[in-house]
């Protein structure tokens, strides 16, 4: 089954065009300077229509996720992450964390991530993977196991 893909609207076309050329395009307000997502032609913080599109850094951290053990048919058969990441510029977005085991041990909250664009049909989706220069930290965290992580900072 083919992957379920977004259907861009005039207000979001720039984002999906950006994904095809390897740019994670956010918007920001020229009046209050706040960066925001998902796309819209005005600032959700102050209502100003004076906004611009810019290329984000692609850096993010892992905010929260689940590992779906009953994947949708277009997502294959193996359990996979459905995650929300906090972009370096502030906004959050839903995505998948790839290029690492889909396990609680490998997927540590707050781990640094970078965007990677994957092509499906005539669209490209922004996915995220562990930041290349932070493998040691991820490995150390993974060795601690999930129960220890969830219990972090609390009495047993």
């Amino acid at each position, binding site marked *: 089954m083919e992957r379920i893909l977004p*259907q861009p*609207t005039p207000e979001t076309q720039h984002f999906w065009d950006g994904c095809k050329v390897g740019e994670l395009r956010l918007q920001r307000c020229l009046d209050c300077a706040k960066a925001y997502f998902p796309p819209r032609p005005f600032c959700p913080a102050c209502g100003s229509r004076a906004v611009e599109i810019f290329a984000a850094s692609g850096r993010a951290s892992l*905010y*929260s996720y689940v590992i779906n053990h009953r994947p949708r048919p277009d997502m294959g058969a193996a359990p996979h992450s*459905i995650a929300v990441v906090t972009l370096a510029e502030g906004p959050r977005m*839903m995505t*998948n964390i790839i290029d690492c085991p889909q396990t609680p041990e490998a997927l540590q*909250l707050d781990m640094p991530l970078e965007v990677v664009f994957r092509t499906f049909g005539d669209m490209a989706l922004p996915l995220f993977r562990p930041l290349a220069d932070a493998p040691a930290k991820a490995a150390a965290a993974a060795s601690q196991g999930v*129960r220890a992580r*969830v219990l972090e900072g609390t009495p047993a």
Partner: protein
Amino acid sequence: MKPRTVAVVGAAETTRLGKIPDMSVIGLHADGALNALADAGLKPGDIDGVATAGESPVAVAHYLGITPTWVDGTSVGGCSFMLHVRHAAAAINEGLCKTVLITHGESGRSRVGAGGGFGGRPGSSLMGQFEMPFGVTSPPTMFTIPVLRYMKNHGVTEEDLAMVAVIQREWAGMNPRASYRDPITVDDVLASPMIAWPFRMLMCCLVTDGGGALVLTSAERARDFPHKPVHVLGAGESVETPMVSQMEDFTTSKAFRVSGWKAFEEAGIAHADVDHLMIYDAFAHLPLYGLEDLGFCKPGEAAAFIRERNTAPGGKLPLNTNGGGLSYMHSGMYGMYALQESVRQLRGIAPAQVPGARIAVSHGVGGMFGAAGTIVFGNDA
């Protein structure tokens, strides 16, 4: 709304709950409605206001033979019926109608005469563009996404989530109409099939068929009905976002906080005044968020509050005493059943009756933390 001016004078669920393959969605609306009208000693022709969600109020009114002067089709998910109560109170106070029927019916399990449910979001909607492509399907892969952040920030464990389901099963064991009544342990919950880590099957709500309805009128007229009226002391509502990924903070629901605060303020009550509490539990983390966002617990303290049996049978704050969406029933838009249990408790007829309950709070969620509605009921206003 103006507090204490409107009351529930009729309340009932469908004759059967659970698996009802011989009734369609509109049929379940009607069964609950006719039971609630009988409870109030009324006929459909006595109703001049109709509110519903999931179905059009046009369809419900016509099916029942009602010609209303006021309708409300507010449909913001499972808490829509809390919002209907609040809107009905305003409409009755404004003189738009005198007697309101609020109906719910859903063939969640058997899917008789039902629409497509989740997954039918247009690919061009914001959710269709920015959430659906990443594999979300239905509530178990969306409603659950915030909880790891909550667990990490507050040191809450999988065992804590499991305990929510264990204690609600204790309540369900006292309720002959509950879908699941056999006791369970934390180990049972943690051994149940994985759905979307960290959520296992017994941390997720049921999927059943059923319905229910309420009849409301002015407090003045309410004195003339067969049952002692249950007054609406205060009510609140709010919404946050249709996309769970865009919640402001994954450890707290803004819609819960705004709705709860408004309801408590209108009712003029303190938390210590509350004898009985319903918090819509589509998943095991909902009561944790609800207890904190409604102000019964400080942030991060709800898991210990439940673990220490404050919400269990015999505890100081009986919570989800019908067994909840986790064990009683959950057709899809569970808010109606939370309201029904609040009314039963204040009438003194609940299967797991809280002795002498005078003030009951019923809090609902819509979508994935997208909306909220809160009703404060009292039986001696």
